[in-house]
């Protein structure tokens, strides 16, 4: 297993670097993903305000996506 680990790491890296060249969803296949009905930040001001409403009345906060990953589909 110890000897396999470096090989697995190299294989993973090759696969990942390969993904950069050959994405399995091509840019011209992302029309549905780019549609505004798929957007998570269509109304950022409303999302920020509702996050604030919840944060001051609940004991939890964070990881709501307000400062999260975004989307690489545009």
């Amino acid at each position, binding site marked *: 297993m*110890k*000897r396999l*680990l*470096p*090989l697995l*790491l*190299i294989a*993973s*890296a*090759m696969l*990942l*670097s*390969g*993904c*950069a*060249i*050959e*994405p*399995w*969803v091509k*840019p011209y*296949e*992302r029309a*549905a*993903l780019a*549609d*505004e*009905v*798929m957007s*998570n930040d*269509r*109304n*950022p*001001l*409303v999302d*920020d*305000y*509702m996050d604030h*409403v*919840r944060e*001051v*009345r*609940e*004991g*939890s*906060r*964070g*990881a*709501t*996506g307000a*400062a*999260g*990953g*975004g*989307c*690489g*589909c*545009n």
Partner: protein
Amino acid sequence: MRYLTLSRHSFCIAFVFLMFGLLNEAHAGVLPEDRADALYHRYDGGGEIVGGWSATFRKKIGENVDFNGSYDVDMVSSASIDVVTAASPYKEKRQQYSAGFQYLHGKTTYGVSGLKSSEPDYLSNNISYSIKEDMFGDLTTVTLGFTRGRDHVRQHVVDKATHTDTFSDKFLEFGNEVTPRADRRNYRVGVTQILTKKLIATVNYESQAMQGFLRSPYRRVRYGDANSTSISYQSELYPHTRTSNAIGLESRYYLSYRASIKIGYRYYTDTWGINSHTGDVQYVHPFGENWLSEWSLRYYTQKKASFYSDLFPYADAQNFLARDRELSTMSDYSFHFGLERKWKFTQKVFVKASFFYDRIQYDFKDFRNNLNSKLAPANQPLYKYGSNVFMLQGSLGF
């Protein structure tokens, strides 16, 4: 040792391959389109009315830099259960300003922003940094973020002799004066992944470390016999540190008749003993080219902080004492509806008018309604209330 050497080599190779993969990205990323929004909002529930408005703008300078700013003002008129039972109803204004910029270099977007929030008895200054990278053929977006915030807490005191308003930041705990400041550090990691032509998923992780004066100077805990109406009060006493971790997962799927459905879940835990689960589902449905509606349901439940109690048996019963209903065992569920009308003039230029409504119902499992002081705590009903939130928004794309 041989294993370690091999591992180091393989890590170096992996790093080179990864960098090779990243550098192979031929075309650059893009910054968000120029946009301005104005929002009127009103919250009404639990004796609290908060009305106000917000405005924000984002403007690109060339293709690689954009500037953004926002302003928010709230007028708070509060007669909440805490305020009515411990102090006098009040009105106050909170203002918040933020400004920032983003710089795009290749596939990487660097962001810096500052935020200042002020109300008569609470000041907060924050600075945020973020790095966003599109990778693997733009299938994956990784965002790293860090926010540092510093707060200054004061207590509004009315001088009964002169009827003038004063503010104090001298607080005593265990007989010693404590600094009225708090320090916050937030660390964020987000990964958005395109999974199929119609499915996208996001994982967000956020850790927050807080240190300093973390309680309200106004709120009190109560102690005494649960079957007696003779109840005494003392100030809350909180730990001076709090570390929290939250992980959120959400996934959005495109429905073939041009609509989308989103499912989200968040788990939260902190060193005060609070654990919470949040689940939500959203459906977005357009009508024709110009109208769009959104419908959401959200459920939230949490376990109380370890030092929370609705009623303590006697004074100084614990090292730390809280009767803040946000720290109690509670749940809430909400319904959200939104309707948008868009007028598109060119690919970029549009005007949009939107209306949103949220109904939120809060249920507390160990926080009793003590508005009727003639009832002994054991006979007081558990507290619950509903809130209505209305929002009207105007947006301009340019």
